[in-house]
């Protein structure tokens, strides 16, 4: 193969390479100010590359890359930007600059390490979303997670050590299970390969699919998280530094969803079909469970955390509907959920920084002091509860339509109705939060505060613009997902498989 200077260094590689190299370089910076600019600069370049890869340079020659790597094991460095990858890479690329910007004033000990780890995590995330080789996928999965442990344990809140340990145990168990499952499937591929094509064509007997299904599912369910494997998440979100929480909740949990869609459903279609009812029930119980807890939460961070569990549960249920509407709904929601939750975190972070508390019961009357923040928050909150003309509505509409139209279950109407209850509960906890924190008379905590600064206003403003743009014209995202959804469902067509 020719050298690096040739045009064959594909744009898609840059998505991983830029954050990787800039992240490593960040270790060598001296002061906080310059490394902060460096990180922002890096993330903006990544965003530009990501946008280019979806518009001008979207021909196959640019967006897929294949090179030899550990051939003896049957693994290769194979990455490709398909519709699902596009969605998630775009989300990663959009999130990072906004996160850096929104937390611009936050000061860190060892800032260079903080930003270096953030960027390394971004490289890992991009790799997870692009990998077309199971071993490579696993490698990037770990590469994304390891910086997160450090970010939580070094820069987190008071209980960071215990919480990071819990987070570590959870994800470590998940990773091990996934590795076992990957090796298992590898041994059954016709050509002893880790490539995704080989995984898709592996003939796995029905009885062994069941075990593999649960290995994979646990790994991904922990990451999303799905009830009852979620208890690392509220703690971690509460204790992590805000910028890390934004990456974790906005982007990293999507690794689990991607895993289900790309590495579970088409690889183990029979088991996915057979266990669909069980998994969907778990997801929906979790949705209701998390929503009910969110209603009684007095801690802003945990409120957002439980709200996110409910939203991820809906995605899981929609995936196992094995329906085109549901699957495309999930794919566009991957992006939209990230946008909305990052918006919520920006607001929560600002409230904590300004008032010194995250307790809802201690807050009140912020609207009088911070009208701009209130308007932006209300829009983000409405998007979070899926109001039409915001970005979340089309995704939720399609996911619910998919669950209702599922041919994988006979309980489709019940699933839809119970999952639908969270539409009401979401309005309850979000509006109550707004009422208690922003409306009413002010108190001593809100007395002296000023409205949000330029950086938060800018970041939230962009998020709100995205919320409306994608709410009015969701087709922009749906155009990306049509092909990949059809492709994956073709692999999952159980009725066809049975005939064969």
């Amino acid at each position, binding site marked *: 193969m020719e050298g690096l200077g040739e045009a064959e260094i594909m744009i898609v590689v840059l998505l991983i390479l830029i954050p990787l190299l800039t992240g490593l370089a960040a270790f060598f910076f001296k002061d906080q100010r310059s490394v902060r600019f460096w990180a922002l600069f890096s993330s903006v370049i990544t965003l530009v590359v990501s946008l280019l890869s979806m518009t001008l340079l979207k021909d196959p020659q640019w967006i897929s890359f294949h090179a030899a790597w550990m051939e003896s094991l049957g693994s290769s460095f194979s990455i490709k930007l398909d519709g699902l990858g596009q969605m998630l890479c775009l989300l990663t690329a959009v999130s990072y600059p906004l996160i850096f910007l929104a937390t611009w004033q936050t000061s860190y000990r060892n800032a260079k390490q903080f930003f270096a780890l953030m960027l390394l995590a971004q490289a890992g995330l991009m790799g997870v979303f692009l990998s077309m080789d199971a071993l490579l996928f696993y490698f990037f999965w770990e590469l994304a997670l390891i910086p997160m442990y450090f970010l939580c344990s070094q820069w987190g809140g008071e209980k960071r050590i215990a919480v990071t340990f819990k987070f570590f145990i959870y994800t470590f168990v998940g990773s091990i299970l996934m590795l076992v499952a990957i090796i298992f499937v590898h041994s059954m591929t016709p050509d002893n390969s880790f490539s995704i094509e080989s995984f898709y064509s592996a003939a796995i007997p029905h009885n062994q699919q069941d075990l593999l299904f649960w290995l994979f599912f646990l790994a991904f369910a922990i990451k999303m998280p799905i009830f009852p494997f*979620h208890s690392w998440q509220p703690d971690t979100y509460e204790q992590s530094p805000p910028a890390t929480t934004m990456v974790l909740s906005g982007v990293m949990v999507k690794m689990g969803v991607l895993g289900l869609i790309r590495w579970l459903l088409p690889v183990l279609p029979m088991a996915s079909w057979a266990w669909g009812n069980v998994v969907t029930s778990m997801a929906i119980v979790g949705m209701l469970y998390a929503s009910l807890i969110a209603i009684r939460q007095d801690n802003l961070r945990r409120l957002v955390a439980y709200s996110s569990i409910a939203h991820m549960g809906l995605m899981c249920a929609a995936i196992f509907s094995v329906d085109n*509407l549901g699957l495309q709904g999930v794919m566009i929601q991957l992006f939209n959920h990230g946008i909305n939750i990052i918006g919520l975190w920006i607001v929560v972070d600002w409230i904590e920084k300004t008032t010194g508390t995250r307790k809802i019961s201690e807050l009140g009357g912020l609207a009088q002091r911070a009208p701009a923040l209130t308007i932006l928050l209300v829009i983000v909150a409405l998007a979070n509860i899926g109001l039409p003309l915001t970005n979340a509505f089309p995704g939720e509409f399609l996911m619910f*339509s998919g669950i209702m139209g599922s041919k994988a279950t006979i309980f489709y109407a019940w699933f839809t109705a119970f999952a639908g209850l969270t539409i009401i509960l979401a309005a309850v906890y979000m509006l109550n939060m707004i*009422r208690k924190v922003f409306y009413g*008379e002010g108190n001593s905590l809100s007395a002296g505060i000023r409205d949000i600064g330029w950086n938060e206003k800018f970041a939230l403003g962009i998020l709100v613009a995205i919320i409306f743009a994608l709410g009015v014209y969701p087709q922009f995202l749906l155009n990306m997902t049509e092909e990949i959804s059809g492709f994956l469902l073709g692999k999952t067509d159980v009725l066809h498989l049975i005939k064969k």
Partner: protein
Amino acid sequence: MFHIDSMKLLLGFIVLWPLAGFLINGLGRKYRSKKAIASYACSLIFASFVVSVFAFFKVNSNGGEVIHYFDFIRVGSLHIPFEFQVDQLTCIFLLIITGVGLLIHVYSAAYMKEESQEHYGRYFSFLNLFIFFMLILVLGANYVIMFIGWEGVGLCSYLLIGYWFKNNEYNKAANKAFIMNRIGDLAFLIALFWLVNKLGTVSFSEVFQAQNLQRLSSGDITIITLLLFVGAAGKSAQIPLYTWLPDAMAGPTPVSALIHAATMVTAGIYMVARSNALYSLSSLSMNVVAITGLATAILAATIALKQNDIKKVLAYSTVSQLGYMFLALGVGAYSAGVFHVMTHAFFKALLFLAAGSVIHAMGGEQDIRNMGGLSKKIRITFITFLVGCIAISGIPPFSGFFSKDAILLAAFEHNKILYAVALFGALLTAYYMFRLFFLTFSGSFRGKPEQEQHLHESPPRMTVPLIILAILSLVGGFVGIPAVLMNGGDRLSAFLSPVIPIQTGETVSHSTELALMGISTLAVIITIVIAWLNFRHYRMKEEKGFGKILENKWYVDELYEQVIVRPIAWMGNFFSSIFERSVVDGMVNGVGRAVQYGSRQLRLLQSGQVGSYVLLMVVSILVIFIIQFFLRK
């Protein structure tokens, strides 16, 4: 130049003017004078009204049209376009929304003038946004676009009920309205998911096609129509989802007139009337609609008998009148339901605005026990309020007579018991309305002396809308004169016939029809006389027994609190403080202990040194990986 696609432009303008008003006033509220804010808001709605009149004449001559703008959602075989449909039914709503909306905007300009500039701007931007969403609701050519408007108006209602956001009770009322509406919205959505999966379309023109209707089983149709009706019950405040509407009176009075009387709450009636092709295929759903409507009409009327807040009486009256509209829909008299929407928009908007004028004169007082004898002090308000009371009671030739008569007649043709109960409700209506009227305007003044000093008629910007609405309440019924009184008098049903086919079932004889009219008119007049005898000289007294139950609204709010709100809170507490800690976390901790590896890791993490070690590890892995990559080339 308007030749090719003039309707596309017209409809675009109808919705874009209010949206522009929302943006101009919303973004510029700090920089514009109150006068500028009010004139932007009013003139843009006026522009919308003028365009609506054009659209009306165009539809009148050319019939309805569907206008395509862009693809909203296109996934696989599911195609949900962003399309507007303008036909006879839509036109009537367009005129009500922009016409009555304009009058209320003008009235608001004076009514809200005490507000600070910034909040004044916020108020008008919300009001314009409401008009925008309401227009989307009635213009949408499929259920999803309708749903956009449907939730949008709910949002504006929420924002305006909680307009005075420092008052926590008002905020609670706003939340209650939004959440109760969401319960209905969920049912609406499930109906849409059902349609998507059974028919693959949600467009009106396709769903109501005969061959598509045949593809739906009768069970499907019943489920879809019942779910849609639950949605309608939420928005239009029917049993069991009506309790938010009286609380919604926390909003400024013009908001109550516009959103919670004339327009938004009639969205449910619009939706059922729009879906008449579906409803007519399910007699079960029709019966549910009729009985729910009638039960709501009676229940709300009984509560209204004992309320002392001028706005609360009108709120329960609205719930009750909406019930009549559903009764009409349920017995198949869709156009009578729409007719009542129209006349109700006139007289109820009038009553609310006149009540606002009373409250304004009384310096914010809303309790009618502290009023009395206002007739001489605020002459225009008094006369217009009286017109409203006569109209809602149904005395000819006021508008309410014709629309209520159409509903009663349809009920009579359907079932005599329905008719008798509905007539009883009509008498209750006359009784509580005239109780309100006499308590407010006759007898002697019962308020504080300083309030009496303060009494004054409202400025022209408030009284002119009152006078216009009073005239409409008087003559608005003439578009629907029954055939027995004037041949071809029912112009409204004829106009609506392309959307709502005229019923050709059994009809009662002309003499029976005339007798029914005579009976109801006579009974209403007797009721008013009784109300006069009881309330012309009101003396305050404690309510006891049944009266107390009515005063406390049958304790329905308390019941909901015990049966729904508390159990949900209890479950949330149980899950978060007990289940989550002991069961879910306990499981994890068990796993954690089982993993021996874990303890070592914990020690390492706590030592603080681990950072650099594992960092080194990650970097080494990366280096190995990169070397591998280049070596293999």
